[in-house]
């Protein structure tokens, strides 16, 4: 059961219909390179938001987990260049890749199980950068610096995956389902126990919950979500390289999630959309070479001024407006 008020359901439905109708309004470039891209990267950011908001873990391993799925699907893809020894149809490769990311997520959870907050941030960052360095130095499986190319994805209803409209709808469906999944999971007994552990691990342990198992399971679920995003990102980029999962892409996902707001799953997609729009159009304002400085400044401003991101800013503004309305209403009586 997903706990949403009627108004929230209505808003969700309206948002979904609007996004479904987008292909009628927007040119193909916007569909795939802005909205579609925001969705697939937003999925990875969503896995971070889920961990941060409901588990209290700000993990920097999410890009790495997406990379695990991306590399797994690339190694097993039938179209890969160079073709790996494990080549198989996409119908098997995609679920196996997501499974690999889920298991990797559990492994990250296991490694970091005893750590919290800032230590967790450090350990997950170290794991993430280490994985990308490993992928870069390993030729046999990861193809070293070159990575694996031509991962074009399966055909959907007889049309190539990378047709803009196909990619858009697949990304939208996946993102929406995973968004609902997160909203659902956090109301299940598992999700509630997870939030209890976030608030007080000792007390939750005292009433008989296994803190370690819940944490590992949360990381596995986050690995599953990030893995779905990782597979789609690999199709979007037509392949995967070590530099696509290095320090900067790792930080990028954090930047997206924080700009959007870690307080709500929707924040991940808002942040990813802002990032995609800025990445695309900043070049015409400041020149693309200095994009990093711009995004760094925006990120810094958000962290300094509104640590709960755009979502939190919106919440406060709407509360302020609502407060004013009830205030005037009360004054009128």
């Amino acid at each position: 059961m997903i706990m949403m008020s009627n108004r929230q359901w209505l808003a969700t439905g309206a948002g979904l219909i609007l996004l479904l109708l987008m292909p009628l309004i927007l040119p193909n470039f916007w569909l795939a390179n802005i909205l579609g891209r925001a969705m697939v990267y937003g999925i990875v950011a969503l896995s971070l938001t889920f961990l941060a908001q409901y588990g209290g873990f700000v993990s920097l391993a999410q890009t790495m987990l997406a990379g695990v799925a991306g590399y797994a699907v690339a190694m097993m893809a039938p179209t890969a260049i160079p073709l790996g020894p494990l080549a198989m149809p996409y119908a098997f490769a995609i679920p196996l890749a997501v499974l690999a990311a889920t298991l990797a997520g559990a492994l990250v959870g296991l490694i970091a199980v005893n750590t919290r907050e800032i230590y967790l941030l450090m350990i997950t960052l170290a794991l993430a950068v280490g994985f990308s360095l490993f992928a870069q130095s390993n030729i046999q499986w990861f193809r070293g610096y070159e990575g694996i190319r031509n991962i074009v994805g399966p055909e959907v209803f007889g049309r190539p995956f990378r047709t803009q409209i196909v990619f858009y709808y697949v990304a939208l469906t996946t993102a929406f389902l995973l968004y609902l999944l997160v909203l659902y999971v956090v109301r299940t007994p598992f999700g509630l126990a997870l939030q209890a552990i976030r608030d007080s691990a000792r007390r939750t342990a005292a009433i008989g919950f296994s803190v370690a198992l819940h944490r590992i399971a949360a990381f596995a679920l986050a690995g599953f979500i990030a893995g779905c995003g990782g597979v789609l990102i690999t199709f979007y980029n037509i392949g995967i390289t070590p530099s696509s999962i290095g320090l900067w892409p790792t930080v990028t996902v954090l930047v997206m999630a924080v700009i959007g707001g870690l307080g709500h799953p929707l924040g991940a997609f808002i942040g990813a959309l802002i990032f995609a729009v800025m990445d695309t159009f900043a070049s015409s304002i400041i020149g693309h070479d200095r994009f990093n400085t711009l995004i760094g400044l925006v990120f810094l401003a958000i962290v300094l001024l509104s640590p709960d991101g755009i979502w939190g800013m919106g919440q406060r503004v709407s509360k302020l407006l609502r407060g004013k309305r009830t205030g005037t209403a009360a004054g009128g009586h």
Partner: protein
Amino acid sequence: MLALSRQQDSQSRRSREDPEAAAMHGEERLSLQFFLTVTLNGLTLAALYFIVASGFSLIFGLMRTVNMAHGALYMLGAYVGFAVFDLFYGSNTWGDYAWLIAIAAGIAATALAGVIMQVVFLGWMQGQELRQALVTIGLSIIIADQLLANFGGNPFQFFAPDMLFGPVQAPFIGRYPIFRLFQVGLAVSVGVGLWLLLNKTRLGIMVRAGVDDRQMLAACGINVPLVAVTVFALGAGLAGLGGVIGATAQPMALGVDARFLLISLVVVIVGGMGSIGGTALGAILIGLAEQWGQVLFPTYSVILTFVIMAAVLAVRPQGLMGRKPV
């Protein structure tokens, strides 16, 4: 840009591996000589890691601030140092001292950057560890990009002064670069200096008291923010020193910020946060693991570092010499 810097990074790694490669494929491959050479390579690498990571650890120890910009500061020190070095190297009167001036400039630039970071951004959000980490991530993005904008992406290398240049005859090993031995000596002096500073000076007493109880220290009339700024400048300055030293030992290119941030993180996670001895132990372990890993199983050597980290976390989450968090 990113791809290019990564390539350069991997090139610089390859060139660093050269001594081992020479040792492996050389005609006179004596087992003792080989063993000692690889071990000494590990220790000299550990020396550089210690210099950089001790600054990271120092800042974390007192302020619980995880300075994610430490790698960017390392790079800042190297670039500013090189700009100054370039200026003096050609001059007749100053040419001999160019390298020393570069070190001073690198330290000064990063220490100043550290002071600005602490005063403008981090000081007033003391206690919000995660937010501080995020702020330093934002700063590191900006610093790295501005360095690229101002200095370009070409790799460069310092020339060590004649005294520290060229090989020296070492017992059992044969010819060995003298600069690498100097690196070890410098790391030892930094370690001893930090130990003396923390254990024998008034500032050290204040720092150690601050680690245990900041509020009580403030109540004793100590200007805690000033102590914090001093420590931050010192820690950042060590990153700058490491930057110049590192760029003398091996060519410097963009992308090293990620590598040295990673090294700092792993070293203090393994050794224990905020402990000088722990940082030294962690640096030695990681340096040796990296060098021996490259010799024993070249393509998987990175994993060894992380196996060590995971093993330490499983057995002692606070690090080998860290105190249990209260």
